[in-house]
């Protein structure tokens, strides 16, 4: 089965980005990070990522809006929402607008890796 390789992590918590990208790289993923939509956008546009892991609250653009923009640019790019914001409304909205999954922090690395793989396989 085909595995995703390029992961884009979008989150305003730098510490989270640092530890998570380190650990994903150890699992042989290529990881790029962005702390805001302004940084994430060119990456999405370039078509580099196979899967995006996206936080719900970003400083410049609301994560939900961010999801909508990603989907408008790359309809088939899987997006896993990963957030500290436990909201049923946000999660349902996210899935309806094309998110592959909506997960809550803190998340075990194994679980995140599975979510990334499943998201990639589902969209294909």
């Amino acid at each position, binding site marked *: 089965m085909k595995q995703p390789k390029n992961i884009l992590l979008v989150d305003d918590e730098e510490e989270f980005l640092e530890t998570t990208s380190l650990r994903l790289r150890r699992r042989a993923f290529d990881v790029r990070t962005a702390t805001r939509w302004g940084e994430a956008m060119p990456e999405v546009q370039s078509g580099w990522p196979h899967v995006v892991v996206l936080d719900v609250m970003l400083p410049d653009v609301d994560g939900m809006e961010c999801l909508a923009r990603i989907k408008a640019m790359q309809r088939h790019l899987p997006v896993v929402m990963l957030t500290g914001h436990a909201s*049923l409304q946000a999660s349902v909205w996210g899935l309806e607008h094309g998110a592959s999954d909506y997960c809550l922090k803190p998340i075990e690395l194994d679980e995140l890796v599975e979510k990334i793989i499943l998201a990639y396989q589902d969209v294909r």
Partner: protein
Amino acid sequence: MSFVLEQLARFFRRSPKSGPEEVRSAFQDHYRNFRALLTANNNALELMSTAEEMLHSGKPFGMAFVGGDITALTVNVFKMVRSLIALSDGRYKELEDRFKIIADRVEAILSRQPVVAGSAFVLTMEEIDSGAVDQVGAKMANLGELRNRLGIRVPEGFAVTVLAGRHFMEASRITDEINRRLQTLDVEDLQALDRVSDDIQDLIRGAHLPDDLDHLIREHADRLAHDAGDEATVSLRSSAWGEDSRQSSFAGQYRTRLNVPLAAIPETYKDIVAGKYRSQAIVYREQRGYRHQDVLMCVGCLVMVDAVVSGVCYSRPPDDPRSPWLVVHAAPGLGNHIVDGTSAYDLLRIGRESPHAIVAVHLATGESANACLSDVHARELAQLSLRIEQHFGTPQDIEWAVDRDGRLVILQARPSGTLTPTNAGAAPDSASFEAAPILAGGATASRGVASGAVRRVKTQEQALHFPRDAVLVVETPYPEWAVLMNRAAAVVAESGQIATHLATVAREFGVPALFDLPGALSRLEDGQVVTVDATGRRVYQGCVEALLEQATRRPNLMEGSPVHSLLKEALGHITPLHLTEPDSPRFKPAACRTLHDITRFCHEKALAEMLRLGRRLGAKDKSAKQLYVVGMPSQWWVVNVDDGFREGADLSDPFIRIEDIVSEPMLAIWQGINAVHWDGPPPVSLRGFGAIIAQSAMNPQLDPAVRSSLSGRNYFLISRNYCNLSVRLGYHFALAEASFSELLSESYVNFTFQGGAADESRRRRRVHLLADTLRSIDFRVSVKGDSLSARIEKRPIPYLKERLLVLGYLLIHTRQMDMVMHDEARIDRYLEKMRADIAAIRGAAAANSGAENEAAQEHPAG
């Protein structure tokens, strides 16, 4: 709208005949949706049982757990709904509306905000009594009650209300950020806890106080300056408000600032509000089942009393509620240090009855000295305390001071919790064991007996590494050690007494605590196992069973707490299952009342869709085929939904040979079915099965062989790594579902059983026997009435295979139980045989997988 149908339609327009490639692709799309639905189903069921288990565990949990579990659960149910809609080409569209109605109800419960009373941001002491408790919290309301109803002297001042506190938080827009940090916090990680606590408090201290509130506070500060003079200083104390009325002490968790200049009140106010997020307060709320948002801060702002002597009075001692004495702790000056556990003090007993006899139990300055509290004041204090106790109707814990003018002022009064049952840990009975104590004496701060390894803690750094279930040994019982109350087995302190905050929290949590025991730090060594008998005031070497037998269980602090109630209420819309009969006309989207109903509906309909799909798409290899075993057709049917048949198998037949099946989970079940020879008719003959059950034999409607629709038959729905087996025999219905995958979230075995064909008590008995057997092989089992469901998830494939073998065996052999159910002796014999069979099957499976491993090691390339 279905992608598949679009594809098919486009194809048909192009060509009148559908080629095998297109059908294959359509099938694979459906199969992917089906798999996604199954995975989501499994996740949802797991999250439901996790929540149910947590609710009944008595273990503490917070909103981070509740919000996290229920959000994930809802996400998975919604995924199922969407997968089913795609799978059925939009047929169950209305299910989405049902889902949203239920999800909205759950969301409304989870996001419910406490209702804050009143409209004032500030109330002066004249305006406060017990009726204002929802505006100013219990501490300030009680103080106002003393002043205005009982005419007792209390400090003058004002309260910045709960409403004002909320106004501050809302205006500064930091609540979302605070909640986000708490959602991701693991309170067991003390280092992270301190960091998050500091960050949140900085956030609050740095926030802008809304102008209207700032002005109002300054106005009232000016009024105090006018009455008490510009040089007057104030104390700022938190008066927490929580939604429930149970006894929760909140002792020592929040912040108090003394001697604050009037001009510094607004800044200090923020600091007190920030105190809501001190580490010990966060842990306390988690342990006692409060949502952080349910506890709101009022701040009392009271003119400082220039005290010559001050202290604490218990109208009844917490360690002996039936005592005829009041207990008074007194020290010179202002006595916050008494409750902080840092000061030497006088300990007096005063008789409850007039003339209030006074006994000096212990004096800080030595036996010959005078007590720092005069007899006149001591009697006045006793009388006041008894009046207060009588007024509030419960024993009181009262902070008091005597000012320069000799006036007795009450600083605070609150119920003195005696949560620990009075029988917790009896006085040691020296006849029952021989051991001599290592240490004896001290003061019982919290009754009870516990054993554990000693861990001495002197610094915060050491506290971070405090192990679970160790005995905490400290010099001074600082309130900060309260963060360890959820993990300490017992507490021993060299100093301190029962009035300290730490003692209050220990009593509340049911942690035995022995204070005022000099030499504890030097006499006890880290790692040494001891038994602390706080009631008998002794510490013994080792684990003294004779004493521990008398120990009572810790109180269940979650039961009835706000978070517990909230989870229970939310689960009311989630876990009950109403849709149990797929054949009933009530089995439809509109009848789904809970998320569990929706998962059940989706699962059932998805299976039905997959069964029909082969025929619908005209795919021969995906249509139902009759299983051919040892040269003859059986009554088992097989539907291949993906890659469950061997490549090159002859698929033109309406039959499939067992040799042509490559579905690993199906083969495991099949092997289990045939593992042990059955004394009854051979398992391949379902007519034989049915005959055991008189009812089904007499009623041809119930004979599976007569049923026409496939859903009524016994079928395997398979792919290489998936198998769903439905067995209906008479009134029996069993469903085994297994999925093997390298991804743990796709690896599981589910089993449900509904038994019939016997009277009620036999059916229950049968289900319970089955439940016991499944539990013995590590299934998580729940039984309701005569139906059973059992699950194992996230386990490696060989482990699951072994369980499937046993399940296959049970499917066949449980039926035999019916025949012997009326005969106790036979049933025992029968159970014994079953246990032996299962052990043999598991033994063979283990040997087999061991051999496979060895083979794999010998031929790593192969």
